[in-house]
């Protein structure tokens, strides 16, 4: 099972976990990313390309499934308007082997942070609005995987 979704709706982590739980997999590693409320952030808006963003997510999921022995993989990215505390991304990798589930999960979140076609706009409590620039740190972290 490979699920790669880009959605405006809230991510139902429990429902996704239940899908993996029902599969009888030995190990499930997950990563949940939430909108942080730093610097009086009032809203985070994620713009996306309706075709390319989901295709990019699916490509990432298949790259992980080729690289590790995974019995199930879920990759969900929320887009649109969110507030601090909202779950913005869920990675859930199941495998008979814990090391492979963990490695796939880490790979996917690192890649998601750099490769996925999304644009972030922050709106602050004082009304200030800014589009987020690319961060160098994320690129160097994701770059580790190219050498592995």
């Amino acid at each position, binding site marked *: 099972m490979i699920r790669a979704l880009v959605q405006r709706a809230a991510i139902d982590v429990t429902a996704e976990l239940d899908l993996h739980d029902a599969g009888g997999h030995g190990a499930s590693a997950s990563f949940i*990313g939430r909108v942080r409320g730093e610097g009086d952030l009032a809203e985070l808006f994620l*713009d*996306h*390309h309706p*075709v*390319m963003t989901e*295709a990019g997510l699916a490509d990432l999921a298949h790259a992980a499934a080729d690289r590790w022995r995974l019995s199930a993989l879920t990759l969900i*990215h929320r887009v649109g308007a969110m507030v601090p505390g909202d779950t*913005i*991304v869920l990675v859930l990798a199941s495998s008979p082997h814990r090391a492979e589930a963990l490695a796939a999960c880490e790979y996917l979140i690192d890649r*998601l*942070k*750099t*490769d*996925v*076609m*999304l*644009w*972030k*706009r922050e709106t602050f409590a004082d009304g200030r609005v800014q*589009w*987020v*620039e*690319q*961060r160098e740190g*994320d690129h160097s972290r994701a770059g580790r995987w190219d050498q592995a």
Partner: protein
Amino acid sequence: MALHIAYFAWVRERMGVAEEVVEIPASITHVGALIAWLAARDAQGALAFTEPQRIRAAVDGVMMGPDAPLSGAREVALFPPVTGG
């Protein structure tokens, strides 16, 4: 030539539209020329494309450089560098 153009992030905000179908002159044969043409077309274009080196493009869903040809293209997407998830 009629071309579907989609804008994202601050390019969309500065253009004031998310997408449009434009009739482009035959002399506009590649992505870089399209961006320059849009920058010269009106105030919105001038604002959105004041720094063309900050603009990324996808032609029919594939990332392309400024030299990419427009012949046969159905959709060109123009946007800033992605900021990731």
